[in-house]
């Protein structure tokens, strides 16, 4: 009887070399505090912003890949408020005329519409002694982050479940990474998400007040925070409690939201056009230049994988969902020369290991060369498919080549027919009852014999040869 209504406000740091309005480096994760700063990004008197053309291009690129409309006329505005992380006392943003209008991402077969995307600048980073600002004796400010270009992406309230919100964010991250627009790394703050949620009572058509959740810093927490908030609001409604329009923060440790400020405490940002920057007029030529920079995107890539590698559509979609994974796949195919084999191993073995170990493709130790080697070991009958699957976790864990592992563990397949014949004869001697049943027509028992041989050889027997010898011996007797 309740319907959840969710809209997202997302900030993505754009992957430019220099800041949005000055030439300082955007490097701020590893850098020592207050190294990449200048008079402009620390708000010294008399300084003026100059728009970084690279940031502009990345904004256009994002607009294009998210199916938005690039506005040929846009403008910068000032958002005024006092806070120590805001060096000028205002943030340069685009309030009245954003650079992109519209757009969408498909989530679970539904179009989640994007309302607008606009360029703005990041704030400085504050470090509070102790955990919380309220109890801190001292706060330090690192201006390395101040002025890094951000693209704010605002969705329509089209999202209906916390899970959809998470998927939207994951898809967005993948698209941004694909197009080299942003690292999309939520944990590092390169992608940030604020969520607005309200609940519609479908019986009486009443809609709850809207709550905004801030500080969500992982994809998992997007879903968790919204689930928590959805339940909290519904609980409140059921109890007949009064809900207030407020901004809440997500506490990742306690796994709950907490009130930050109510609507009455909201600031008046006194937006007005930024007089220091000219109006932004874009021409078709620039937009087309940017369009040409867009690489193959997931949907196109999946289609190509199906036709080029002859793999099922579902597999192709998974492989192309992440750009690094897709690149990894293609490098493996190039070396192993068997698209189907590689996709099977990646989809079943590799992705399972990655999930269990919470790894990303960048940190995987297995090299594409290892896939080629594994395929070679299989093709030369050095190991069986079973052994290949068995050693995979070790390849994953150690990064050792499959050859090394096979040699170290003595897992080479038993190829020698005489040797095999001896082992099989022994197995048959111990299972005379079953031989009888087999001869009486229970042909399925062949599998049982194979199993016994494998057990005896710890899986090293060449399966084909084992089959052949078994059949021969069983028919003869």
């Amino acid at each position, binding site marked *: 009887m309740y319907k959840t209504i969710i809209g997202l406000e997302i900030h993505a740091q754009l992957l430019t070399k220099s800041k949005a309005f000055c030439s300082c480096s955007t490097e701020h994760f590893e850098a020592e505090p207050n190294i990449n700063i200048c*008079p402009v990004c*620390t*708000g*010294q*008197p*008399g*300084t*003026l*912003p*100059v*728009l970084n053309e690279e940031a502009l291009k990345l904004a256009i690129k994002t607009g294009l890949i998210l199916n938005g409309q690039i506005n040929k006329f846009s403008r910068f505005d*000032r958002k*005024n408020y*006092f806070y*120590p992380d805001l*060096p*000028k*006392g*205002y943030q340069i943003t685009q309030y009245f005329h954003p650079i992109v209008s519209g757009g969408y991402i498909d989530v679970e077969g539904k179009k989640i519409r994007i309302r607008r995307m606009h360029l703005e600048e990041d704030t400085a980073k504050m470090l509070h002694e102790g955990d919380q600002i309220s109890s801190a004796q001292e706060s330090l*400010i690192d201006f390395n982050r101040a002025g890094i270009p951000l693209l704010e992406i605002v969705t329509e309230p089209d999202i209906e479940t916390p899970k959809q919100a998470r998927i939207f964010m994951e898809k967005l991250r993948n698209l941004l990474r694909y197009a080299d627009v942003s690292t999309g790394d939520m944990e590092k703050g390169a992608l940030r998400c604020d969520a607005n949620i309200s609940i519609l009572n479908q019986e009486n058509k009443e809609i709850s007040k809207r709550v905004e959740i801030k500080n969500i810093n992982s994809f998992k927490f997007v879903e968790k925070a919204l689930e928590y908030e959805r339940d909290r609001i519904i609980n409140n409604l059921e109890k007949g409690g009064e809900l207030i329009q407020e901004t809440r923060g997500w506490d990742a440790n306690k796994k709950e939201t907490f009130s930050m400020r109510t609507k009455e405490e909201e600031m*008046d*940002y*006194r*937006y*007005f*056009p930024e*007089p*220091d*920057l*000219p109006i932004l007029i874009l021409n078709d030529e620039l937009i087309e230049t940017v369009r040409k920079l867009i690489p193959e995107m997931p949907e196109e890539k999946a289609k190509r994988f199906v036709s080029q590698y002859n793999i099922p559509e579902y597999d192709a979609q998974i492989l192309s969902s992440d750009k690094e994974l897709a690149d990894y796949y293609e490098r493996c195919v190039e070396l192993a020369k068997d698209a189907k084999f590689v996709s099977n191993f990646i989809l079943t073995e590799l992705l399972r290991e990655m999930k269990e170990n919470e790894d990303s493709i960048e940190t995987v130790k297995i090299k594409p060369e290892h896939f080629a080697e594994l395929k070679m070991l299989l093709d030369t009958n050095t190991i069986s498919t079973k052994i290949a699957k068995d050693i995979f976790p070790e390849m994953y864990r150690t990064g050792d080549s499959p050859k090394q592992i096979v040699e170290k563990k003595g897992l080479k397949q038993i190829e020698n027919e005489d040797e095999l014949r001896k082992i099989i004869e022994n197995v048959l001697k111990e299972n005379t009852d079953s031989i009888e049943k087999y001869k009486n027509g229970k042909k399925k028992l062949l599998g049982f014999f194979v199993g016994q041989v494998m057990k005896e050889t710890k899986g090293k027997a060449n399966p084909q040869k084992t089959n052949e010898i078994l059949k021969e011996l069983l028919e003869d007797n």
Partner: protein
Amino acid sequence: MTLDDLVGKNVIEESIKRIYERDKEINSVLRIEKVEGNKDGNYFGIPFLVKDNILVEGTKTTNGSKILENYSSPYTATAVEKLLKAGFTVVGKTNMDEFAMGNTNEHSAFGPVKNPKDLKRVPGGSSGGSAAAVAAGYVPFSLGSDTGGSVRQPAAFCGVVGFKPSYGMISRYGLTAFSSSLDQIGVFANNVKDVRTVTEIMKGKDPKDSTTLEHDKDLVKNVDIDLSQTKICIPKVVYHENADDNVIKQFERVINFLRSKGAKVDIKDIPELEYSVAIYYIIAPAEASSNLSRYDGVKYGLRNHALGLNKMYKATREGGLGIEVKRRIMMGTFNLSSLYYDQYYSKASKVRKLLSNKMKEILNDYHLIMTPTSPVLPPKIGEKLKPLDYYLMDIFTIPANLTGSPAISIPFGDVQGLPFGIQFIGRYMKDEELLTIADNFFKETPRELKNYV
């Protein structure tokens, strides 16, 4: 004597000596701070003074405010850098109304400036220090900034030439922002020729200021026009704003002089001009309220300690900013508040556009618009008029800022022993034309009217 006459001489020590001797009573120079120009530059050895809202590395930039009393400039403004490269030497920074807000120079945290031509009177403002310094003969020229008349009005009050170029002619990089869409660096000098020389050096597109424009005409060279070919428009508003009778009488003398030289002078009704002061006092404080937010005690400048962030902000700004600055921040904050934005800021911007269009239309038929620079003569120090009376003193200078037009104030005789300035407003980005006409006018002005004291 012009700058060209000084080339090859070193008059820096002489300049500094004069400041030490005479400025105790005038208070136009806040600090003597020497930043030497390029030794190979053509003008090496010639000193100038810089208004204390323009940054020069090696000097403080206080903006006439307690909040920046100890602020050292971390870089040099583009305009100053170009002058240093040409050889000129900075010898100090001049007094001003705090953050360039005011037109009498009484709103400086470091005491008022006295008018060298009458020590009981104000030198005008906000660039009163720079105007007085040239009038007192310390330096051949100085830099000021003009947001609503802050170069032209003190030039008129002190009897020197003051020029505000077209918006975008000179880089604002390094000029402390008051009202970004109106601010422009300007020049004070004893003659129009020096103004032309200095502006020509400073002008041009600056990659650090996106609002600058390329200008390819040489400002020092005359365009082909003499006074007899000059068409001048006088807006009717000159006569029905409460201008001083003596000012109007002197203005009539200018008209007669120009007509005697063959110039065509018409009086026209330009009703849009009457909204200028209203538009200005909506837009300028709005932009100022935003521009001055950075003086918050966090990064540099004054910090008055108090427990809690908001209390620190309050103590710092309460103690660091003067009454006029606070008044304008309050007005600007109100004008931009979401409830009143459409009614004030947005509407004022539209009327500003109408005014620009009207000016353009008028200047299709005329070379320039002429007014007295100020409707009044320099008031006495401490006269204490109501804020609105001071605001109305800018009525003739404000339009050029709102429309971005170049405008110049040129001395023309005296009124009861006090300097009088005439203002020419020219066509946007046609500074070469305005300066040619101004120079023609200045050269043909009878000598006794140039040196009236």
